[in-house]
């Protein structure tokens, strides 16, 4: 399922997910797609055109969207609601928590434009708290795929589950890591490169950066590190962490999310709970509101690009 021959091929998680949803809607008339005045941004135009009776645009009213979705789900419909992750998880935070997760409504929240992927838009549009916010909601599932094929596969999987879940997607095309045979499993991480001593555990867009760092370190004869993709933050693949602790003594987590509350916090909690005795270094947004900037420039400033990861590995080796 790991792509070995097309690593330079770029695809949009948003387009791949929308295409998958459109495909699923052809045979499942209980699926309803919603958005809050972001049809184009969330790549939903085709769905709107093909299935107008099962597409609801509520206007700029994210709280309303969440609760209406919960009401529809209460009547047996399967909901996929789309908006920027920052608005889904902060503006409509309480609706997600109370109407979706507390009520157990079958609503899948597709948080788009996550992390700093809106670039020049700035911190009002960055979503660097979403993992932490949703992770803290009881009975929540938090998914953060690393490329387009895995994002589509998770959408396909979520259409079959009956519990609410949150999936965060990048705005911009990402290099394919997997091929279309990717099998999405909630709560399972993947070792993409085997090394020893240092394991870089990444999620979302930062998995590509971690792979680039590992490749560069190999080329220059640096330390052999392991690279792990953790597409599910909650539930976390603790079995994999335990396995990694057998021959690694340093974990470096990388995420396009604040260093508090996200993947790093989840891994740290797991290390402590299981007594793994591994040193943890968390890379992410360093508890600040990043300025608007071109995406890659921002990732570089924040130390979550390949160079930042590489530098951290060299410091900790």
């Amino acid at each position: 399922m790991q792509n070995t021959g097309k690593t330079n091929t770029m695809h949009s998680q948003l387009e791949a997910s929308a295409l998958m949803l459109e495909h699923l809607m052809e045979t499942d008339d209980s699926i309803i797609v919603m958005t809050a005045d972001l049809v184009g941004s969330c790549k939903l135009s085709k769905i709107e055109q093909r299935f107008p009776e099962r597409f609801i645009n509520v206007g700029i009213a994210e709280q309303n969207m969440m609760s209406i979705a919960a009401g529809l789900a209460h009547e047996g419909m399967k909901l996929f609601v789309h908006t920027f992750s920052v608005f889904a998880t902060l503006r409509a935070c309480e609706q997600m928590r109370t109407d979706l997760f507390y009520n157990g409504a079958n609503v899948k929240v597709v948080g788009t434009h996550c992390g700093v992927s809106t670039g020049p838009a700035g911190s009002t549009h960055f979503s660097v708290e979403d993992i932490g916010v949703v992770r803290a909601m009881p009975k929540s599932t938090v998914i953060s795929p690393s490329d387009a094929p895995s994002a589509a596969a998770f959408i396909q999987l979520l259409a079959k589950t009956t519990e609410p879940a949150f999936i965060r997607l990048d705005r911009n095309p990402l290099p394919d890591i997997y091929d279309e045979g990717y099998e999405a499993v909630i709560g399972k991480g993947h070792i993409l490169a085997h090394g020893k001593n240092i394991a870089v555990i990444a999620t979302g867009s930062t998995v590509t950066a971690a792979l680039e760092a590992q490749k560069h370190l190999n080329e220059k004869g640096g330390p052999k590190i392991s690279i792990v993709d953790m597409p599910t933050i909650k539930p976390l693949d603790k079995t994999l962490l335990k396995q990694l602790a057998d021959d690694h003594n340093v974990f470096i987590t990388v995420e396009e999310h604040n260093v508090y509350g996200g993947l790093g916090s989840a891994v740290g909690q797991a290390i402590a709970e299981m007594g793994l005795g591994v040193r943890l270094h968390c890379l992410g947004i360093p508890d600040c509101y990043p300025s608007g900037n071109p995406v890659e420039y921002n990732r570089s400033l924040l130390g979550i690009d390949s160079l930042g990861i590489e530098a951290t590995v060299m410091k900790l080796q």
Partner: protein
Amino acid sequence: MGTKQEQIRDGIKMAVCASGGGHAGGSLSIADILASLYGHVMKHNPQVPDWKDRDRLILSKGHSGLALYSALAVSGYFPIEELKKFGSAGARLMNHPDSHTTPGVEMSTGSLGHGLPLAVGIAFAGQLKKQDYFTYCILGDGECCEGSVWEAAMAADAQQLKRLVVVVDRNGIGNDGHLENIVQIEPLADKWRSFGFAVEEVNGHDVQAMNALFMHQREEAQGPYAVIAHTVKGKGLIETIAGTGSSHYLSGTQDSLKQKFDF
């Protein structure tokens, strides 16, 4: 036995006095609305709470769960005696309704401003699936300060939800006293009208009048409807408490609480 409305009030009194307190004010102000809906208007089956053709009711002002519990108990969803366990350790009847534990509670509510969009989703699903159930949503007048109420109102109009009925408990008093001292929500009927609702005002304690109004709406099915039910907060409490902010939440000993009820 008494009338349905008397039984519901008795149930509220029983629960408040046995448990040492509760949101009596807002519960008593909607007791007669629920008597009309559960006693005369709504299609429902206490033996099969999730009967697919039932009418749905969302109590958006979830803090008035006491009234809903009493209406459900009186209707046969669970024994009336269970009302005495209200708020006690391990009981399923707590301040705000929980659909996971309590039969007849359509969805869990308690945080204000959530109920109408939930009801909009339920009504829209009925429309999509060509089911003819009605969806009723009871809002507090103070709750109408929540922006999400009006987001949902816009959506109800946009989706032309003909079988959605919003009932606003217009008792005029919130947690902090008279609503009009805090915020001006009038002209409330015009507000709903301007959001595309067919609006009627009614005495929220006149069960016969409400029966007639709700049944007319069911025959017509040209909603969304908004019913502004003029009520007295704490209706049935003694004169010094009824209609005042003091009725919002009662607490005390069983004897002292009994003395606060005028029936």
